[in-house]
């Protein structure tokens, strides 16, 4: 085996037991991330992108459960791990960055305390060494006067600074994979650019792979190597970023890209996809997108498509079936 994937997710199914029955929130999600690669996971609300990240890191809120499928981290199967085993992985091998920095940072402790605690939990360093390392991390993430500010509390930082601290915290134990769930959505536009750039640079410096979950295609375009587009709990398209953005293979991706207002041109009207993403308890049979798809045909209503090759990417769409293309 020449090039083993760092993360392999195979046919992941996540279900929620509710009083209306079993709701399938993720329906056979498969993806891979190579070491050092940045994979974007993009989709609209309810598509399941945050759930995918949560499932991988073992932070699914009950009553959600992984009911089938496998997750492999560097060859090791982790989806069946106990809470104790997962705790050993979180931080040390998978780091996490969430949307709201206030939720990731404990307001009662200084950021230095939280950083040092994380470092010493996972790495065999003395208090002095850990502190030094924490200061270096803060400097690397662009916090000015790190040696002083390490003693400050989260509320003493601005939003953008807090998110930098969270990035430092996520990378403190040198994880191989970082899962970032909407890391810049809550930040101002000018800060977003800074923080996203920082995230990309710091991960590349350490050879850490990133799973970047977001709804913002622009961020994906600037940061990611590959991107997976999700719809109604499934991946509908996955491939190199430039390919998916400029030559999308799945009609949903086509519609999505067309509905994004363009900064560079004046438009009379935004292309819109009529209707809305189906609710989890009302997913149509066959292809989940077929009721809204301008190119749907008979097979789409009956059979759910697998991910089929389309140029250098793959799309779950019968339009790309060899017999159809030919």
């Amino acid at each position, binding site marked *: 085996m020449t090039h083993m994937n760092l993360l392999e997710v195979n046919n992941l199914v996540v279900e929620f037991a509710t009083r209306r029955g079993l709701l399938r929130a993720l329906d056979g999600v498969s993806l891979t991330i190579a070491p050092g690669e940045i994979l974007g996971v993009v989709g*609209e609300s309810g598509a399941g992108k945050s759930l995918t990240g949560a499932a991988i890191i073992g932070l699914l809120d009950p009553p959600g459960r992984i009911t089938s499928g496998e997750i492999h981290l560097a060859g090791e199967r982790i989806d069946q791990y106990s809470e104790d085993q997962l705790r050993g992985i979180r931080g040390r091998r998978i780091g996490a960055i969430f949307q709201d920095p206030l939720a990731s940072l404990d307001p009662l402790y200084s950021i230095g305390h939280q950083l040092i605690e994380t470092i010493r939990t996972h790495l065999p360093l003395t208090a002095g060494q850990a502190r030094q390392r924490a200061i270096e991390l803060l400097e690397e993430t662009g916090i000015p006067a790190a040696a002083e500010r390490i003693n400050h509390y989260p509320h003493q930082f601005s939003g953008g600074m807090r998110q930098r601290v969270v990035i430092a915290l996520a990378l403190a134990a040198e994880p191989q994979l970082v899962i970032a769930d909407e890391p810049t959505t809550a930040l*101002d536009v*000018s800060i977003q650019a800074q923080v996203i750039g920082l995230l990309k640079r710091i991960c590349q410096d350490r050879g850490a792979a990133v799973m970047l979950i977001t709804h913002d295609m622009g961020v994906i*375009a600037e940061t990611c190597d590959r991107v997976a587009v999700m719809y109604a709990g499934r991946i509908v398209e996955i491939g190199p970023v430039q390919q998916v953005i400029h030559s999308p293979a799945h009609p949903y991706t086509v519609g999505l890209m067309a509905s994004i207002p363009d900064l560079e041109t004046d438009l009379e009207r935004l292309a819109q996809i*009529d209707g809305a993403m189906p609710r989890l308890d009302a997913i149509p049979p066959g292809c989940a997108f077929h009721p809204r798809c301008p190119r749907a045909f008979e097979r789409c209503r009956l059979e759910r498509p697998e991910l089929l090759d389309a140029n250098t990417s793959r799309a779950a769409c019968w339009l790309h079936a060899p017999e159809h293309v030919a």
Partner: protein
Amino acid sequence: MNAAMNASSRIQPGEHLVQVEGLSKTFDLSASWLSRLLSGRQASLLHAVDDVSFTIARGTTLAIVGESGCGKSTLARLLVGLHPPTKGRVLFDGTDNALARPLSQRIQMIFQDPYASLDPRWMVGDIVAEPLLEHGLASPGPELQQRVSTLLESVGLSGSDLSRFPHQFSGGQRQRISIARALATEPDFLVCDEPTSALDVSVQAQVLNLMRDLQRDRGLTYLFISHNLAVVRFVADSVGVMYLGRLVEWAPKSRLFSRPQHPYTRMLLDAIPKLRDTGRSRTPVQGEVPDPLNPPSGCAFHPRCPLANERCQQERPQLIAAEAGTDTGRVACHAVQEGRIGFSGT
């Protein structure tokens, strides 16, 4: 300033539906008088909106753009009368705007949060009917129901939705209900505070298209608040850029995007992640928005501005014509006035 605006403006005053003159709103966030006395602290005043002036021509859309703390939400509320101004005034169709009931029929607002802008315990029909009943435009009965159904249909919902509750609708549909409510009294002017920021991209497209259609069909005038410049490009006829409560640039859309003058506007345009690599050279972004309670002296942007000089540190720039001799809007920047700013390549 008023005279200057009128002189260089090619639009007749009668065509301005909304005129804002020297509008300011200051919030007193000081601790109580007693604790200030005991601790010797100063009063802290937040100049949320600081001497803002502009006009909106009838039937057009003015977009106000800025980041958090720039005062755009406060400006929106000043315009509809939810806050009384500290200084300055808003003229609506020539009359000074206080929240008088007749005016509230002609001015309405759409809010950012689709989940908090509808009373969760009211039926959708009652929500849309409330303005009609309040202003005596209809009495309860079949006629009212018919009007509500028509309103719901005009925003792309179904008439039978009037007996359902907000939680049964998605975010995009709730914004449509908000729009229906806002249109009930047939207003002339709609203030929209980030109406699509909380929506998914494809839903946003639907709502923006709807708003554009409604404007065309009903001759509405919009004030559209947003932080998303791409959305602004789609909806706006003219654009105002705000920073720390001040209006730093005001321009017709075409000029703002092709030849932005103010360094902050340029920085904003550069900071947006691009879907296509345009080869445009990017000005590196520096620093963060300062604390609004303690704004920098002189020009509020000078700590982050690559072109700041000593005058910028001391003297607050006034709005001047952006490109001398033409009517392509205004900008508040010493570097522009002194000719120090270069033409930013496309």
